[in-house]
């Protein structure tokens, strides 16, 4: 059991290493020459040479990789090419903003969708299940910005309840921050909740068709007891996986939602960097996003091991 968890955690670290190698390859090796890629065709040989040196491109690739990685581990993500800012200083507060928004959405989305998902599963084929099926299908099909703009149209422009732009700054109080981020959080919630609900429903349904559920009914147990006592303990592991998967999706979905509400998060930072082709910032943001993603998946797997009775009680 402990060994399994340790193995899984180690796998997470190995994955993270592989991911950073991959990011490095994509940003430094694939383009051939970052310097000419960034400066464009008009650059003279001289400026190129200077710029290459500045980027450290005269060093061999493996050296640059380990240099980059060890610095990143110490928190040094380099310097932005476009505005010469220290990346970590710019990134950290924005990362916190993003986490705040994602956390806000998660707090609403998880209980809502897991609850409704279980309800839809045990009422399979009844009206509540059909309605939730169509509603979630609609929500899944709709792009983030559509939901975002609809919410702005209704709650901000017409009703004036919430601001259309989610400005936050460090000195802002918790509740004001909460108020200002309500619309983006709702947008994210709707997106993720639909996915989570559908996946929860599917995993509970697959459990409800196991022979031991039929056996419980044949023992004369009530429906509620069968669900609570026989189905849910076994559904825990798949539901945890579903939640983690969607939390990861949430962190990524944030990129577009931040753009809609011009929210100062890490997503905006990355999009700006991509538009300006600021490679060190792109690398840094990619690393942070992937780190969150890998971290969530790893912890989900570990949690799933913890709640699996077959693994908890070995032979």
């Amino acid at each position, binding site marked *: 059991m402990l060994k399994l968890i340790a193995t899984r955690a180690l796998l997470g670290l190995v994955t993270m290493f592989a991911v950073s190698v991959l990011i490095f390859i994509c940003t430094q090796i694939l383009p051939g020459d970052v310097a000419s890629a960034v400066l464009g065709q008009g650059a003279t040989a001289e400026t190129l040479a200077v710029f290459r040196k500045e980027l450290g491109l005269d060093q061999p690739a493996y050296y640059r990789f380990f240099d980059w990685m060890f610095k990143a581990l110490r928190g040094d993500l380099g310097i932005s090419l476009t505005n010469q800012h220290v990346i970590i200083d710019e990134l950290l507060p924005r990362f916190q903003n993003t986490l705040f928004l994602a956390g806000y959405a998660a707090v609403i989305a998880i209980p809502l969708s897991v609850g409704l998902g279980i309800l839809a599963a045990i009422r399979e084929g009844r009206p509540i299940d059909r309605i939730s099926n169509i509603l979630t299908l609609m929500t899944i099909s709709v792009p983030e910005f559509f939901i975002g703009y609809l919410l702005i149209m209704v709650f901000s422009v017409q009703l004036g309840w919430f601001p259309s732009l989610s400005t936050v700054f460090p000195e802002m109080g918790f509740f004001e921050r909460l108020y200002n981020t309500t619309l983006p959080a709702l947008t994210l919630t709707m997106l993720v909740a639909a996915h989570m609900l559908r996946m929860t429903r599917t995993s509970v349904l697959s459990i409800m068709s196991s022979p031991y559920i039929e056996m419980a009914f044949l023992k004369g147990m009530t429906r509620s007891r069968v669900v609570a006592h026989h189905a849910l303990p*076994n559904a825990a592991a798949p539901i945890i996986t579903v939640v983690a998967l969607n939390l990861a999706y949430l962190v990524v979905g944030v990129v577009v939602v931040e753009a809609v509400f011009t929210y100062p998060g890490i997503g905006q930072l990355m999009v700006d960097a991509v538009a300006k082709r600021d490679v060190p910032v792109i690398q840094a943001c990619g690393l942070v996003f992937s780190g969150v993603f890998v971290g969530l998946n790893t912890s989900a797997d570990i949690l799933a091991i913890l709640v699996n*009775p*077959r693994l908890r009680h070995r032979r």
Partner: protein
Amino acid sequence: MSSSATNEVTGGDQRILAIKGLRIEALNGNVIVDNVDVNLKRGEVLGLIGESGAGKSTIGLAAMTYARAGVRITGGTIVIDGVSVRDLDAAGRREMRGRRIAYIAQSASSAFNPAHQIIDQVCEGPIVHGLMTKAEAQAWALELFRALDLPNPDTFGFRYPHQASGGQLQRAMAAMAMSCRPDILVLDEPTTALDVTTQIEVLILLKRLIKEYGTAGLYITHDLAVVAQVADRIKVLRHGKEIEEGTTNDTLHAPKMDYTARLVAVRGASEAERANPDTVKDDVILAIENCSAAYGPLTVVNGVSLTIQRGETVAVVGESGSGKSTLARVITGLLPPIAGRIAFKGEPLPKALKERTKDQKRIIQLVYQIPDVALNPRQTLGEIIGRPVHFYFGTSAEETRKRALELLKLVELPADFIDRRPMQLSGGQKQRVCVARALAANPELIILDEPTSALDPLVAEEVLKLLKRLQVELNLSYMLITHDLDVVHRIAHRTAVMLKGSFVAFDSTQRIFDGPYHPYTEKLVTAVPVMRTDWLESVLAKRAATASA
């Protein structure tokens, strides 16, 4: 429900279960069970027997007023101890289930909830139904565990399902069914998923349990010999309709209907029929010397030697996990052996499939256990049978089709089947197609991997006859892999008994079965139910005798 109705159905008789005019339909309107009556007295065991699709499990579940998804009970009355259960509301039905009538399923390993300890699941019924306190229920469970000969009964219950073996779980499920001291047990193929040697243990215990607590039983199975050991009466079903019902003795010895007579005859055939010795030529086709095979670090076949002659059938028997199927994979080249030699007609055969020539692949063909997955559902029979013809002999499209038609005729299938797809065929017909596909390569040796065990007995009988006929006509050699000693008896010239990867015996079939036995062979041979009502008793007596001696 009116009181007069109650009186009428009770009628003052001793019937604990009375099902009348039961009709069950699928949601698409197909009738699964048609006008079936079931009457069960207190303490009596009724065997429900029939082929797959006869509707016997559906009837068993209907007795509990339970219908699986996709089917529903559309007619008839079900009366348990004077109460018409179809007229009860949901709560009333729940009161019946588990408490008055309990269920034992075929596969215990999937019928236990992996999240809870066995004892909690066994005690759940009496506690939730309010029959016992937790302490009482646990004490009763321990008594049942002891009665069922479970190892360490005091601590067994605290295991989780995945920590117990299949045979143990099957017994634990019997305990779970008995936990509320029900009046009726529905036993749905309770020993079918078990190995023969385990099956007999569980059978003995179930029989004892039913007798000791005077429970009535509805014993559902496809195996006439098994039901003969436990049932007082037998009801034969086919396609959802009743064929006949009678006492066990009458059904076995004086069946009224032709269908029943054939069922009995198939089971009895092994007593008389033997392999035809004339087909065997003194010409060794396949020789295996000291072969060992492993999956990773796990050695599954250990130093096996075997020869097969032209026109000969060599059977390899053993329980699941004995390595007999692995041996087949070794011969076909799918799993290269880690040691030993394989020779075909004196020429050494490369170990791995990749290294064998096209012709070396052609001469050995395989027929699988489950014809449903052995045929590509998206191809027509013409493509399935024609492909090897074209592949090995490079025939034109026209010649290929002509040959495919010949092959269909050879396996006794109509010519117009050539454009059908496997889905439109019955199980027996599919297996014939598999045989035709093997024959299409003009092989010299066909490996038969449990060729009849997925088929219903009457269909299996036909396929066996076909195989015997083809052996004579085409001078084929067979290697038969099976757990079914009946089949071995009837078609194998020589038999190898396999245990944990090695042969414990390899001799002519006659000598293997007549003894003197290797202890394991004896265990295997005596565990096969024989169609006599007193077989189980005789085995028990014999065991007691050896134990005391």
